[in-house]
């Protein structure tokens, strides 16, 4: 999987390093891992980024290590994870740079 480009719109490989072209001075990156109740990584979970009003903004599928990543903007966001093991939700406040969060799913 190559770095994301303007040509595509699908979610890039979530386990790949952040491309060198991404300027972390400008981007607000929200990243983390989805785990189950036993603290095991959940691969193939659908993580949805909802804005401050609860409106859907983006969705990615977690990597084999359960990792997800969004490029958002500073502000309040809700992360919602759906998986075959159950769902989970977390409200966060993001700033410019890398914002690391953990998300647990349970049936």
């Amino acid at each position, binding site marked *: 999987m190559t770095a994301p480009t303007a040509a595509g*719109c699908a979610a890039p490989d979530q386990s790949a390093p952040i491309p060198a072209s991404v300027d972390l001075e400008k981007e607000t990156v929200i990243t983390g891992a989805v785990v189950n109740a036993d603290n095991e990584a959940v691969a193939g979970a659908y993580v949805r980024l909802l804005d401050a009003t609860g409106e859907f903004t*983006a969705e990615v599928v977690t990597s084999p290590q359960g990792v997800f990543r969004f490029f958002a903007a500073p502000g309040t966001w809700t992360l919602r994870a*759906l998986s075959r093991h159950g769902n989970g939700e977390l409200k966060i406040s993001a700033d410019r740079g890398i914002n690391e969060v953990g998300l647990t799913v349970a049936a």
Partner: protein
Amino acid sequence: MSRDTALVSADWAEQNLNTPGLVFVEVDEDTTAYDGGHIPGAIKLDWKTDLQDPVRRDFVNQEQFEALLSDRGVSNDDTVILYGGNNNWFAAYAYWYFKLYGHGDVKLLDGGRKKWELDARPYTKDVPVREKTSYTAQAPDLSIRAFRDEVVEAIGVKNLVDVRSPDEYAGRLLAPAHLPQEQAQRAGHIPTAISVPWSKAANEDGTFKSDEELAKLYAEAGIDDSKDTIAYCRIGERSSHSWFVLKEILGHQNVKNYDGSWTEYGSLIGVPVALGDEPGKA
């Protein structure tokens, strides 16, 4: 068209995996998902390498589409069932191609890969072998494809439906939030376009909302039934999803997808652009 002719459910699909005359096709931009496991019997189409022209900025032409489907063993009389990731965006895009090139019977799997995954339905890594065919495509049906000049002329005249997220519409973001934001084009939307994010047409599990909910969604957003409609997004795949809803599920007439979408429009010299949450004036 209606939900009954354009969609199949995951239950129906699972019961018909071995039905002769059906071809399941997974369509994605990133086909590593297919390689890691797919619906048993499904073939794959790579949106980027199979469905885009490798040189020009356009999708495959009639001859390229014929060569592709012949090579993958799809016949004109096969019923093609499309599904994919990203809430079926790229599958809906491919559906639009199949319609554009006049395929007889094509349907979307409601919910795509997501519903299949959340239901914990079976996958396989086996890649089916299909005999090559001699597929014949029709001349492109341009009644469902909009080009830029037509879009500029439609400002204040036709329904323009911007299906990107509210922040992309307003110009606060340039791309969906799972992608880096540095882009060449200007931010904003086409003046007079109404904002109806594609996501409002889908349930959380990726299936389409009910006919009643969908009709209400577009009516409340201010779509005028007496006018023709053009849907757009950033590169034309999310708007294929909304085009599918308007044309194939709700049965609106004269609905076009503007596949050039914001990456083209936002790069044009001299065209009007509106910023903020309101449609703006013509």
